[in-house]
């Protein structure tokens, strides 16, 4: 059976070159970078610093501005809570978009009990924040603006450079979560004017368990873990050396090769989108048409439910994602744990159809043949679900939805 991975927003396969780079740091060089007087620790320290340099190079940062974390969730927690605590004297107002990842949104929740106020910016139908809305919401007590670089569900790339310019003018710190975009589209922290940037290793062909927060030199941040003085005091705990080395290797590869991947993936994305448009009716594409992640095709289908679409696709060897509530948390405790995508609600997709959402996200290893194979199975799967659906039957009888 086919094995077509079109879910690169959830994670990416490890690049074999990254795997090779990591290998020596399991059995041969197992030292702790903080115990660097001896050879074992020194080898680990050198490796972590080399990785720091490579990750910094990916986003045009200084190596000293890279703080390694366990992943993007920790980096987002550190950025939001770290700024909130360190800048409470200036104020307690934070501005975010309403389409941020759960690790940003949920980091704000405990702050609400401590006198912080949060403004959630609306997005347009393409999922974009209007930079002028950012400008008009800034107050004297605003300490942080957090708007993601790209949205994983609908692919839209946000106008972060404009937002960064406004933040700088008004002297407010600006954080952008670049989990979905880093290593896929160029990101220059200087041009963007970002003070804090979240990066995730496993989203650009590196290993899980390594992420980073770019912290612009001079930005005050309260550490969220009590412990030793690793990572310039921003993040206590022994670094996950093999994963950090892997993230560094992946960053180096991405910097050198991503322009080529991007061009190819934009072509595959167009082929997939055009094919879906031609073969499946009642389809609505989501996200911005051009300002979007390469190889990312997202849409919703009327009269079909997302989890059923994913299950049938998987039975044909095609792996994708959905914002459907029914597919959101199959390991939860009860029905209350099933939540429809806030992103789809934010862009105005009616809740009764949110459920039919699909996100196909391709990666550098995908091919045109795989696109054609997906196009070969999708219309039949949709038809099969329509034939079972009472809402589709009613539509056919009435000729209206």
């Amino acid at each position, binding site marked *: 059976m086919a094995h077509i991975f079109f879910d690169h927003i959830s994670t990416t396969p490890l690049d074999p070159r990254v795997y090779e780079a990591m290998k020596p740091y399991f059995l041969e060089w197992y030292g702790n970078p903080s115990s660097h007087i001896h050879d074992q620790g020194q080898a680990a320290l050198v490796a972590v610093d080399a990785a720091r340099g490579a990750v910094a190079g990916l986003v045009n940062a200084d190596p000293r501005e890279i703080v390694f974390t366990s992943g993007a969730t920790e980096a987002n927690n550190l950025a939001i809570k770290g700024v909130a605590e360190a800048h409470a004297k200036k104020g307690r107002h934070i501005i975010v978009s309403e389409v941020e990842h759960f690790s940003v949104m949920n980091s704000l929740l405990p702050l609400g009990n401590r006198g912080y106020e949060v403004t959630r910016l609306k997005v347009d139908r393409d999922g974009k924040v209007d930079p002028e809305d950012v400008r008009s919401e800034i107050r004297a007590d605003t300490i942080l603006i957090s708007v993601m670089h790209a949205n994983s569900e609908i692919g839209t790339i946000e106008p972060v450079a404009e937002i960064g310019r406004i933040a700088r003018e008004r002297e407010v710190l600006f954080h952008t979560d670049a989990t979905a975009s880093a290593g896929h589209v160029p990101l220059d922290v200087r041009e963007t004017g970002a003070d804090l940037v979240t990066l995730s290793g496993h989203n650009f062909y590196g290993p899980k368990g390594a992420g980073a927060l770019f912290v612009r030199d001079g930005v005050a941040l309260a550490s969220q873990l009590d412990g030793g003085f690793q990572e310039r005091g921003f993040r206590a705990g022994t670094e996950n050396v093999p994963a950090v080395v892997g993230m560094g290797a992946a960053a180096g590869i991405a910097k050198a090769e991503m322009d080529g991947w991007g061009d190819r993936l934009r072509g595959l994305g167009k082929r997939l989108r055009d094919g879906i448009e031609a073969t499946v009716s009642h389809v609505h594409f989501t996200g911005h048409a051009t300002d979007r992640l390469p190889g990312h095709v997202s849409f919703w289908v009327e*009269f*079909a*439910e*997302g*989890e*059923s679409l994913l*299950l049938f696709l*998987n*039975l044909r060897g095609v792996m994708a994602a959905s914002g*459907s*509530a*029914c*597919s959101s*948390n*199959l*390991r*939860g*405790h*009860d*029905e209350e*744990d*099933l939540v*429809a995508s806030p992103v789809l609600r934010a862009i105005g997709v009616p*809740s*009764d*159809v949110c*459920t039919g959402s699909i996100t196909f996200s391709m990666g550098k290893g995908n091919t045109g043949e795989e696109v054609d194979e997906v196009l070969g199975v999708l219309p039949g799967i949709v038809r099969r679900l329509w*034939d*079972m*659906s*009472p*809402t*589709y*039957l009613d539509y056919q009888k009435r000729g209206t939805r």
Partner: protein
Amino acid sequence: MAGPYSEKVMDHFMNPRNVGEIENADGVGEVGNPACGDMMRLYLKVDGGKIVDAKFRTFGCGAAIASSSMLTEMIKGKTIEEARAITNRHVADALDGLPPVKIHCSVMAEEAVKSALEDYARKHAG
């Protein structure tokens, strides 16, 4: 590869029994709401106090489709009293269990048969 569902659920999801509608059904039940992610419509043919045919259409997840399919299998040939006694637990057990977050899909099946039998009782009262 083992997925989130039992083999029975996957079997009924992939090969649902009794999909369709019954013209001039003796009882029709509709429960759920597409806004909640699932909706089931159940059609019954009743003869001599027995359910002689049952068909369904369902909009929903794998568990919703499998619960609908299993329910129709369970009620065919049963008397009205027997069908009314079917609970969501019976449906979930017949499917070798459902994940806790999907128990509501079997509840939908139970409510569908009760709703269809109420419709039958209304139509055939006096």
